[in-house]
């Protein structure tokens, strides 16, 4: 692995951590749970850094959280997070970033909608596919109930997909042969 890849892996792990410093936004009042900007880092890692670097960046981030650094939104970290209800979502981050990177590939000329759909597939569907069964397991809930709880997060995630698409397209225009 070349030096540039190592730097990018570190960069996107750090970006995800830095996004956790932003205060959670509640955009629909009390109707929906507040969203954190952190999973935007997962999407950007995949869409900008690519499958391999993006996936490894998230492996690094998850490892740093596991060893006890308080890098998650709200200053949480440590192994306890993985035992909790959202542990599966965290473990899904590397897979999610790798899937996004794989789907987008080098297709820099892709339109807005195709790219948003690819980011949405990796960032929402893949992540929920791992996170929801985990949540159902630790909480002893039927899958359908865990799924219903997560529906409240979908609007916030769609906002993040749109943001990630805009930023990725902007970066690809600024760095055409990225």
């Amino acid at each position, binding site marked *: *692995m070349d*030096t*540039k890849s*190592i*730097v*990018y*892996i*570190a*960069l996107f*792990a*750090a*970006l995800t*951590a*830095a996004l956790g*410093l932003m205060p959670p936004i509640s955009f629909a009042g009390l109707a929906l749970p507040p969203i954190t900007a952190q999973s935007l880092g997962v999407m*950007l890692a995949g869409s*900008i850094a690519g499958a391999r670097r993006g996936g490894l960046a998230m492996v*690094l*981030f998850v*490892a*740093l959280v*596991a*060893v*006890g*650094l*308080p*890098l998650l939104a*709200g200053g*949480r*970290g*440590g*192994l*306890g*997070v*993985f*035992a*909790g*209800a*959202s542990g599966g979502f965290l473990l899904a981050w590397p897979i999610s970033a790798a899937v996004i990177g794989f789907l987008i590939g080098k297709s820099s000329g892709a339109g807005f909608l195709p790219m948003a759909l690819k980011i949405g597939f990796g960032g929402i569907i893949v992540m929920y596919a791992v996170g929801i069964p985990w949540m159902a*397991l*630790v*909480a*002893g*809930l*039927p899958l359908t*109930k865990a799924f219903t*709880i997560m529906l409240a997060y979908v609007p916030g995630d769609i906002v993040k997909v749109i*943001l990630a698409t*805009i*930023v990725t397209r*902007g*970066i690809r225009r*600024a*760095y055409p042969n*990225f």
Partner: protein
Amino acid sequence: MLDLYSPGTSPIHRMSPGAKILVMMLGGTGLFVFDSLPIACAAFVCVLALYPVAGLTAKQAWAQIRPLLWIFGIFFALQWWLSGLTVAAFVVIRLATLILLASLVTLTTRASDMIDTITRALGFLRPLGVNPAKIGLAISLALRFIPVLAQITREVREAQKTRGLERSVIATAMPMAIRTIKMADDISDAIESRGYRP
């Protein structure tokens, strides 16, 4: 290094990180294999009793649970409605036990010791082309980048404020992303020009 470690010299602090993780995994699996309320309650009391042994206060134990109270509430209510009070109590107690156990490992182990253990444990992957020195570089770079990125965000925010754009997410996110990538390119050039060969 800023981590969640709480300094001390208890037997739990002195256990090797690898042994602690192993015990934690066995305990966690055990809770899912023997799933009954009395066992979960006993495990909860045992784990809680380990906190004073490690020289940790009740306040620190509570701090591990507090951020999750609302999700505990949702689970408890749902389980009560679906399967009754006993199951609801069991599920919440088991979850609390797992979190307290895992947090105990984190609170009694320095992040740097944990990183050393992981890097050493990854040594067996060397034949597959994994280089522990490169992993070490990636870890130290990531930790150094976090404050730098926070600084870049502040600078871009200030610049956009003078243009009246501080509320625009795009006007902040775009320059931030481009500056960050440019910085990464400069840093990798700087590393290479110094002849870095791990």
